[in-house]
């Protein structure tokens, strides 16, 4: 490689990178309607259809080039243990007992409308894309793992055993595949259509239709429609009719079933990040108000000190004047009785004594101040 060739490569690399950043910048600006995208995609997970075959896990591993697990995907017994998503497994299927009947639920990133992880990240690694995916960019990740604290679904995993470049890992909604017009790996692999891909708004309609067309089959609750501010991936839960009792259709009663499926219905309907907005909103208040408050306190303290000093000086002066008057009267009396010579002598002695005393007190006060 000669010098010119090298420079050309260098130059083109520079141009390419500038173009790249420019392109992403405009794209981000154009699509900036965070946090809710009307046209965003989602996936509806119907747990009444899931058979726990782990095809989704297998597809996820293949599509994303994740490390192969120790136990093969054909071993379905692992679903009985309570597994969670990790840096190496972005989706897992677990078995849950719902009122005594086994059901399966797939765990992965819910791709919240207004994600807690993105709100919590202090280096802006997470973004909610207009297509619905919540994606993570590890190049600026500091590795603080606050996203993992913030995630209400226990989704992100961390590469604890990586020494130099440990990153947070989670389901990407197969963002690269979506860009190519392909379905997410797991959705494509599902043999039961337990995962339905579509626009989020369509999915909500589909879910409602399934609930109303199959009375007694589903709990009347679409998990993720409003939970934690709404999520792109949503879950339909089975209604298990224990002893022929009427199936509760009240959404509030769904918590019982959802809990057995490992889903928390107590997250509230506002995005998790909003819980911190009050505290963050107080920051400017404190920044503006505290200096005034403490500055004022300081000024009051100073003023009080100054006033105290003034009062003290006045008292000292008064006392001094009292002494002077008394001495003057005494000297005058001396003058009357003993003549001016004696008075002069007395006056001189008095001045000398006063001077000596003043010097002494001044010294003492100095010492005190030290």
């Amino acid at each position, binding site marked *: 490689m000669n010098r010119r060739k090298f420079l050309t490569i260098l130059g083109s690399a520079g141009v390419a990178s500038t173009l790249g950043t420019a392109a992403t910048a405009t794209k981000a600006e154009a699509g900036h309607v965070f946090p809710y995208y009307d046209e965003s995609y989602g996936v509806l997970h119907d747990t009444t259809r899931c058979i726990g075959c782990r095809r989704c896990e297998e597809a996820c591993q293949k599509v994303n080039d994740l490390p192969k697990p120790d136990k093969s995907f054909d071993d379905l017994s692992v679903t009985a243990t309570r597994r969670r998503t990790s840096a190496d497994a972005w989706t897992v299927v677990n078995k849950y007992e719902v009122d005594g009947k086994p059901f399966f639920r797939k765990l992965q990133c819910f791709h919240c409308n207004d994600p807690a992880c993105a709100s919590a990240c202090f280096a802006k690694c997470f973004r909610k894309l207009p297509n619905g995916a919540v994606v993570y960019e590890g190049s600026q990740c*500091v*590795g*603080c*793992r606050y996203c993992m*604290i913030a995630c209400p679904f226990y989704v992100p995993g961390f590469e604890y*055993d990586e020494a130099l470049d440990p990153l947070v890992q989670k389901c990407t909604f197969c963002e690269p595949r979506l860009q190519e017009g392909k379905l997410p790996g797991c959705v494509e692999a599902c043999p039961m259509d337990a995962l339905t891909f579509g626009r989020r708004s369509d999915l909500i309609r589909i879910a409602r239709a399934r609930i109303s067309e199959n009375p007694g089959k589903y709990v009347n609750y679409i998990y993720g429609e409003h939970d934690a501010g709404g999520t792109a991936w949503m879950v339909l839960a089975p209604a298990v009719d224990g002893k022929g009792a009427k199936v509760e259709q009240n959404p509030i009663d769904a918590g019982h079933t959802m809990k057995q499926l490992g889903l928390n219905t107590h997250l509230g309907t506002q995005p998790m990040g909003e819980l911190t907005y009050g*505290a*963050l909103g107080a920051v400017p208040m404190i920044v503006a108000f*505290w*200096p005034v408050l403490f500055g004022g306190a300081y000024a009051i303290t100073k003023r009080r000190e100054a006033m105290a000093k003034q009062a003290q000086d006045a008292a000292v002066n008064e006392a001094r004047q009292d002494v002077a008057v008394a001495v003057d009267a005494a000297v005058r009396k001396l003058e009357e009785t003993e003549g001016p010579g004696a008075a002069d002598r007395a006056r001189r002695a008095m001045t000398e004594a006063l001077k000596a005393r003043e010097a002494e007190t001044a010294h003492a006060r100095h010492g005190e101040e030290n």
Partner: protein
Amino acid sequence: MSQHTIVIPTKDKLFNLEPLLTRTPGNILTWIILAVGLVVTVIRFTMGIGSVANLDDNWPWGLWIGFDLLCGVCLAAGGYFTTVACYVMGMKHFHSAVRPAVTTAFLGYAFVVVALLYDLGHPWRLPYMFFFPGTTSVLFEVGLCVATYVTVLFIEFSVAPMEWLSCKFPWLLKYRKLVIRATILLTIFGVTLSTLHQSSLGSLYLIAPEKLHPLWYSPFMPMFFFVSSMAAGASMVIFEGMFAHKGVHDYMDETHLREADCVVLSFAKAGSFILFAYFMLKFIDMLVQANIPYLFSGYGAWWLLEMFGFVLLPALLYAKGSRDGNVKLCRIASVNAVAGIVLNRFNVSMIAFNYQLPPSDGYFPSIGEICISVFVVTLIVTAYRFIVYNMPVLYEHPDFKGEEH
């Protein structure tokens, strides 16, 4: 008592390292801890966090955050508490307590940052938060405030090393004067920053209501953290003073010794008030959130233990101690209060956190994590001793005696 002589470093003998290097049991223990800590450090940075820590995906934050960060920052609150009392409120008789408090605060914060480097996946990327500011993040606020406050504390503290080094580098005197003139500004700036990040350490957990037990979770957590940090500030001054009097008594001058008891009693009184207020706040919050049913569970008993044994009890001990002029009782109360603060931070970050996970998914810090935490504390103590042995912290430097500031 006032007859001892303090070794003032001179131009020729700038360092006074003997007390650190003599073979006393304390020093030997320090060396061992530091050596072990260094080994663990090497393992941590060559083989990853997972090689030394019990952290996992459910427990991304463990002892290093719960103790080193939360407790570290909180227990370093003595800095702002003392400077505000002395400079802003004009309680001049606390003057001798300011420098030790600022020193410990600075060391506390500096080593919080050091400890944080162990916990971060990419420690060298810490400054990234300024390049890609995630302004919606509470952690951003914490980071920004801690970074700024460490700087402020460093400037406040820098007077001591400058006085120490001025005999060799006289040009430092100019800067010293500048800093002393800015004292009140730095103090007010410091208390603002402290308010912000002490409270925002509580705000960190606001985002996870489903993970933290309802008895500890509250929308007012920022306030609880701030108020308890004030109590921690008062308690830590007494607590540290207790150890300082044991260990480095020889480096205290007459003024310090004269004022020490008064500082203890006054801070005890303040601590008593603050702890009472904190107790009432927590209690009312528990009632307002209708958490009484939770009190009858295991976590409830634990909460009651924290509230009565580690908040109300030290408040009462402080009150009695300060009224009777009983310094010893105040010191006992300070131990109790500091333990209470640590317990509270442990509860929020570890014990009551992830309370819904099955016990098999629980967390207990590994030997490695404990080693690092002990290592960091030892580093702080060693640095404190080094500073006290060399710099005018517990005594006034004869060259600067009598200056008003």
